[in-house]
């Protein structure tokens, strides 16, 4: 029997390592950190989806926050008992939140396909602007359909029977987990599943077709790739991932509200994909970590790091409102100038560097 190709073996080994690390991580970190990593996992799922669209198929989307919103609201509406109405139908269900996750994936997938069709006519920056437009208008549209979405107050799911996670924790397979740990395992098991599905999808014909579209639409078309089909498919798949992320986001927050999916979310998703490295799946973890933690901890760390005696910097109050955003922007631009191919690119460069060094000896 032929030995399995190293190119296939490495990702599989990496995947197994990742699963093991992910499984044992909560034992090494605090309960609260587990919650933070749970959110990183949720971001990661959305980033995988966006990467399929932007990194692999080359279509820029600044609107994935809107797809997350659809997913989140799907979950909330199905779980809630607020008597939300659409048409003649009143939603009041005891649907378990976990079952809403695949439903959210389906709903968003369809939404993505529906959006992908008209988007075929738009290229490059026009598409980016169109998706930007959708993300910007999403909160206002959500608020307009009050009876269905709960309007500006959103939908509160806390304590409802549909929610599996509660303050007292959850019992899974006989083990009792705190809420934060449960959230962590939930989001990361789905993330790892999504990662595997994504990887399988992208290494096959579909992935090659996506990459062909990205590299040159004309060449792809002349090679017989059905542009319309694959572009629409890319939208559908990426929206489905974002929908799952949105559903998990709703479960983690235990509420949804139009303001929890602002345009900043869509922007940060794109940032996460680029910083992680377009066209790379593992780098996205770094992207997710960057986007999530950069906003929160940088200001405090910097305040501690800069000694007081430094003439001007020492007096700077980096905790001041606005300072964290400045830092985020500066780091972002620095990354784009130094390592435009993101974390994955950096790893590649370091790897080839050492290869060259050791290859000589």
């Amino acid at each position, binding site marked *: 029997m032929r030995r399995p190709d190293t190119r296939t073996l490495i990702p599989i080994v990496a995947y197994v390592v990742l699963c093991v690390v992910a499984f044992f991580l909560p034992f090494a970190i605090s309960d609260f950190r587990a919650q933070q990593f749970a959110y990183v996992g949720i971001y990661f799922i959305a980033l995988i989806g966006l990467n399929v669209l*932007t990194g692999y198929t080359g279509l*820029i989307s600044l609107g994935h926050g809107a797809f997350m919103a659809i997913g989140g609201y799907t979950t909330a509406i199905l779980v809630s008992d607020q008597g939300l109405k659409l048409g003649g139908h009143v939603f009041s269900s005891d649907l378990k939140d976990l079952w809403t996750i695949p439903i959210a994936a389906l709903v968003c997938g369809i939404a993505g396909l529906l959006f992908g069709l*008209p988007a075929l*006519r*738009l*290229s*490059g*920056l*026009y598409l*980016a*602007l*169109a998706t*930007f*437009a*959708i993300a*910007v*208008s999403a909160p*206002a*549209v959500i*608020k*307009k359909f009050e009876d269905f979405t709960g309007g500006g107050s959103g939908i509160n799911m806390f304590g409802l029977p549909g929610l599996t996670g509660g303050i007292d924790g959850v019992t899974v397979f006989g083990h009792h987990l705190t809420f934060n740990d449960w959230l962590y395992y939930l989001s990361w098991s789905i993330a790892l599943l999504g990662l595997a599905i994504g990887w399988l999808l992208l290494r096959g014909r579909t992935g090659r077709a996506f990459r062909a579209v990205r590299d040159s*639409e*004309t*060449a792809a078309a*002349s090679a017989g790739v059905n542009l319309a089909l694959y572009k629409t498919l890319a939208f559908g798949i990426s929206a489905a991932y974002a929908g799952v992320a949105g559903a998990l986001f709703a479960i983690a927050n235990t509420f949804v509200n139009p303001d929890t999916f602002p345009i900043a979310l869509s*922007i940060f998703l*794109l*940032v996460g994909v*680029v910083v992680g490295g*377009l066209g790379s799946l593992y780098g996205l973890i770094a992207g997710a970590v960057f986007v999530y933690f950069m906003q929160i901890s940088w200001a405090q760390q910097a305040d501690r790091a800069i000694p007081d005696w430094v003439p001007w910097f020492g007096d700077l109050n980096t905790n*001041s*409102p*606005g*300072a*964290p*955003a*400045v*830092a*985020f*922007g*500066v780091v*972002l*631009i620095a990354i*784009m*100038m130094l390592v*435009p191919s993101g974390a994955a690119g950096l790893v590649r460069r370091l790897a080839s560097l050492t290869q060259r060094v050791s290859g000589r000896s």
Partner: protein
Amino acid sequence: MADFLQQVVSGLASGGIYASLALALVLIHRATGIINFAQGEMAMFTTYILWSLTSNHGWPYWPAFAATLLFAFVFGLGIHRFVIRPVERGSVLTIVIVTIGLLLILNGAATWIWTGEVRSVESPFPTRTIEVAGVTMSIQDLGTIAVVVGVVGILWLFFQFTKVGLALRAAAINPGESRLVGVRVSWMLGLGWGLAAVLGAVSGILAAPTVFLDPNMMAAILIYAFAAAVLGGIDSPAGAVVGGLLLGVGLNLLGQYVNFVGADLRLPAALLIILVVLLVKPSGLFGKPVVRRV
């Protein structure tokens, strides 16, 4: 009818503000092929400079206005040189992210330096209204229209009738050949950014008396400017101006006469219209379709 005309006039004024910013976006896109997501924040930042000059340092209005425009020009030039040039050859996405980073920096810096408190900026025009042919018009609106027309006019003259303007246009259309003729392309591109920043500053300064000054004042205006630029055709300066004015008037009329839209959905309605236009005519009203060569 008087109501209608009143809405048209105030629509032209707000449209002028959108047009100015849209023109800035188009200018930069024509010159460097980039969509500058930070255009609004650049405008906001320069407006703070005007406010600081008039409120904190007691400058009279028009000298401060001129000084601010000068600052904006240098600011735009500087940003192109130090932030954009290093990544100019990168991919589209890299540059988009850089402009987003710039957006974050400027927004954060404004909050950091001046705090998020909302401030009032005096308008050089009185807030009285006058009656013209039975229609009540605000002097402020008329003044805004006048300033926008003036600035756009001067710029048009610059581009059409000066050597530098010609060089700028050449550098934008064909950098390679322009270099052969002795045009210093990268300086021209920087000049383009400087002028765009001036247009943005005009937009911010004219908007400030109405929307008041705070770090997020330009966010909505930027979206309308995008819509206007796309509507008119992202590479067409005339399109940007027409698009902006159409948008301003259209939004006012929509908000006034279509009840479902009311004022809540004005923005999504505008964006929806843009999307529809894009689907029918992807390169905008005045844009030329992009021909892709294999």
